[in-house]
């Protein structure tokens, strides 16, 4: 047997992810060894500490540019930036997840396996504390996302995809209220997500057949200098793209989004809307910019059509929604379209502006779902749009906050929604994709209508007797809202520091 040389592993560069996976495993042990009543506090603290430690590790690594662990992980500008973004957005989502004071026991079910509607279920809905496994699951998900944006070969990417998807499937099923809806959402997400993963894996196999390697640089070289049939390349790329487009909720692979967003516990919806978007687009950027750069002329029009379709579908269907969470879901579909416009610029501006958009949108959408968790009646969250009528008279502060977030989604200047749209559209014009920008502008007009309808309901309608109350947020939700709103203002008024950061980070290693 010949000498077997082990690949070098830079543990420092991997530390952010290692911390999270370690903490998640520790969290499972906590479940086993600590008494139930003290678990929540311990788990929450552990999760926050893990995110903070990981964030510190990312900061320390901020100038690292290398490929490590045998070419499986690339730590470069986009990786560091997106991992930092994931950690911050994840921490804010964790605040919403950890909130226990709005509803007795929190937004999660106590034992998910109990049959819905049974006597035990009624009992646990009333007085059992929510399950604390959500914390390790969340940390696993965030860790997987961090690996996803750093993956430098297709198999690592697939593993990361599964690592962050499986916890999310579970988390979706854990709502305390409307459990059937929640379980249906989880099942739908799981089934469709599995198909998407299968497509991704099949695509990886085909691309491996084409290039003879799975690392992105091997694919890049093979694309530049093809040895085998191009059909393998195109079919493989298409299938990999389907897997990623599904996670990013781009039309026509978006159909799960409204159901899952509506059924999942709202803090989990917030986590998905903010962090899954970052992860999916981070991976999409890396695949397209690093591996398949050589066939950009082939995929640009196809993905352009998908971007246009996504914006259109998201905007038009958002108009018809009557449920707040579904409306936000379609709005997030449309925003995925705008993000893809930025991606398709296929230049450095495209990369930096997309990363900027991801962060800006993440904060706004977290604040939006944070407010949704507060508007409640006796049956839990009151998400039907008609129920929000006249809320501005009853709780002006929250209505004003929500109005501000909606204006940000509509892209009104002095909010992050405007600067981020400007950034991606500017990059796209630069990249010769003017038609997509015109499409984006037109769909923005359509999309303004549903937002405005909500604003009208909040302020200009008279409150009725059935108007739900706005719960007083606990410390964690308040903190999440303050962070989300402050970031939305700050990135709208003084976006320069973050723009500079994204520009400095906008260079992949190959």
């Amino acid at each position, binding site marked *: 047997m010949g000498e077997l040389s082990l690949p070098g592993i830079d543990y420092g560069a991997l530390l952010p992810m290692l911390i999270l996976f370690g903490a998640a495993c520790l969290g499972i042990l906590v479940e086993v060894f600590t008494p139930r009543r003290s678990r929540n506090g311990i788990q929450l603290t552990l999760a926050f500490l893990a995110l903070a430690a990981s964030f510190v590790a990312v900061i320390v690594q901020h100038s690292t540019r290398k490929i490590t662990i045998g070419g499986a992980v690339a730590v470069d500008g986009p990786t560091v930036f997106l991992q930092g973004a994931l950690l911050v957005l994840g921490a804010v989502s964790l605040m919403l997840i950890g909130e226990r004071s709005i509803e007795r026991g929190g937004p999660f079910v106590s034992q998910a396996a109990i049959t819905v509607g049974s006597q035990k279920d009624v009992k646990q809905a009333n007085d059992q504390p929510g399950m604390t496994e959500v914390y390790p699951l969340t940390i696993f998900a965030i860790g997987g996302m961090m690996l996803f944006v750093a993956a430098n070969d297709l198999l690592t990417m697939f593993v990361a995809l599964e690592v962050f998807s499986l916890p999310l499937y579970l988390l979706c099923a854990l709502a305390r209220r409307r459990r059937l809806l929640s379980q249906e959402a989880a099942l739908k997400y799981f089934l469709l997500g599995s198909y998407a993963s299968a497509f991704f894996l099949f695509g990886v196999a085909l691309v491996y057949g084409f290039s003879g390697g799975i690392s992105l640089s091997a694919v890049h070289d093979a694309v530049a200098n093809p040895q085998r049939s191009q059909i393998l390349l195109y079919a493989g790329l298409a299938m990999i793209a389907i897997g990623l487009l599904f996670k990013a909720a781009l039309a026509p692979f978006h159909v799960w989004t409204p159901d899952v967003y509506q059924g999942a516990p709202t803090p989990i919806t917030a986590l998905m809307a903010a962090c899954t978007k970052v992860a999916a687009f981070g991976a999409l950027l890396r695949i397209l910019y690093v591996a398949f750069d050589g066939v950009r002329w082939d995929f640009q029009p196809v993905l352009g059509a998908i971007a246009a379709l996504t914006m259109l579908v998201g905007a038009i269907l958002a108009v018809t929604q009557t449920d707040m969470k579904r409306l936000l879901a379609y709005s997030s579909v449309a925003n995925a379209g705008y993000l893809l416009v930025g991606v398709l610029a296929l230049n450095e501006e495209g990369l930096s502006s997309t990363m900027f958009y991801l962060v800006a949108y993440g904060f706004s959408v977290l604040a939006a779902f944070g407010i949704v968790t507060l508007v409640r009646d006796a049956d839990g969250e009151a998400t039907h749009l008609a129920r929000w009528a006249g809320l501005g008279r009853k709780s002006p502060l929250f209505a004003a906050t929500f109005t501000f977030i909606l204006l940000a989604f509509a892209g009104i200047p*002095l909010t992050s929604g405007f600067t981020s749209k400007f950034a991606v559209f500017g990059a796209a014009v630069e990249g010769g994709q*003017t038609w997509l920008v015109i499409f984006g502008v037109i769909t923005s007009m359509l999309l*303004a209508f549903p937002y405005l309808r909500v604003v009208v309901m909040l302020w200009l309608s008279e409150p009725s007797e059935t108007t739900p109350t706005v719960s007083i947020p606990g410390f964690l939700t308040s903190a999440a809202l303050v962070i989300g709103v402050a970031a939305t203002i700050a990135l709208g008024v003084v976006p320069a520091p973050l723009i500079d950061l994204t520009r400095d980070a906008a260079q992949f290693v190959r």
Partner: protein
Amino acid sequence: MNDFPFLSILTLLPLVGAIAVALIPKAKAELAKTVAFVWSLVVLVLSIFMWIAFQVDGDRFQFRESYAWIPSWDARFTFAADGIALVMLMLIAILFPIVILASWHDVEKTNRSAPVYFSLLLAFEFTMIGVFAAADIFLFYVFFEVMLIPMYFIIGSFGGQRRQYAAVKFFLYSLVGGLFMLAAVIGLWVVGGHTFDFSKLAEAGASIDQNTARWLFLGFFVAFAIKAPFFPFHTWLPDAGGAAPAGAAALLVGVMDKVGTFGILRYCLSLFPEASRWFAPAALVLGVIGIIYAALLAVGQNDLKRLVSYTSIAHFGFIGIGIFAFTTQAGTGSVLYMVNHGLATGLLFIVVGMFVARRGSNLISDFGGAGKLVPVLAGVFFFAGLASLALPGTAPFISEFLVLIGTFTVHPAYAVVATAGIILAAAYVLWMVQRTTQGTLNPALTEVPEMKKDITLREKVVVAPLILLIILLGFYPKPVTDVINPAVQATMQDVGVEDPGPTAVVANERVGR
């Protein structure tokens, strides 16, 4: 004095005021009103100082200030004013205290909060001053969009009937225009060399590819035409003007709509000269159609506020043909028209508001013979109407006349058709006055106790400065035209058009031969 940062302070001052007023509790309504009024007077005083400091024969752009904002996009807080912006800023500074005073009791009829209303008015003043003072296209765009928000809430929360519909329609129309402009702004930024500075872009503008420039022009023009509004983008204005509280409606047509015409003059013409010339015939046709069509609709209105809104659309037709005639005379006339229209229509809206507040109805058919009950107010109404139809001796006459003769030298046909608009103006104004204040007294009016109260002292203070200015500028417009003229000449130079020589001289030469 010229180094004093007038424009940035002038822009920020109302914002500070708006925040201060918003923090006053709802119960202390009087305090909020007083603070808002005094604050707007401070803005007025500062504007007067700025007017004095402006050098008529100096540079085109004065009071230039520039601060870094988003360096990687080269977006800056750049403020600068030419003569056109200066007169508009002055108009804003004059109208706001008047409107605040005129709106003194508007909120009391609703159960809404007075501090919020006056805070929104000041916030609106902030965006208005900002949009005219900006010399950076990014900054201009920001103000252009943000100004929708205070006005949206003013109409939506404090307006009359159908206010929700009107507010949403107003917002969506403007937003659609704004987004077209956003696309054009991005395009301009990319082809213009990654800068937003107006002066740099104006230089780069000439080198933009002809086709691209036309598309970019269209993006800007649609936004401004909706804002102005020109036919056929006007349908939001009667709804918004009809639903808004009278004071806010005066600001809506008096100031905010001028952003459209101002934007065409400053941005469309100077940045895309070739495209401006190419599109001019179409714009002239739209202007003329607007004059006739809106005037005809105004004749048929039974709602006073909607009627005044339609008259405004007709007047914007005049401003439009004045701009696109590309003569200094017509251009100066247009800018002067923007000022005079703000004064005259502002006055008309405010007086209509006084009638509506007394009667509790916008409908002309609910009035009739009101002059017998409130003779002085009816007299002011009549004067405002006459100013609005451009009677000689009132300020609008001068501007309308300038526009018409300036247009006649190059496009006689359009000028002739537009002149018919004057006759229609007489018809709608006089008929409105007749049906409202003249004739036999509507018996229903005597049953409304408020209708017996003639003009109050507060209302006199509100209308007096406007009446004075209308008469003063009607006889002596020189201080304003002196400021406007160089800026308009510079704009015409940007477009690359020279005024036609006086034809009378040519005729004499022929006789000499």
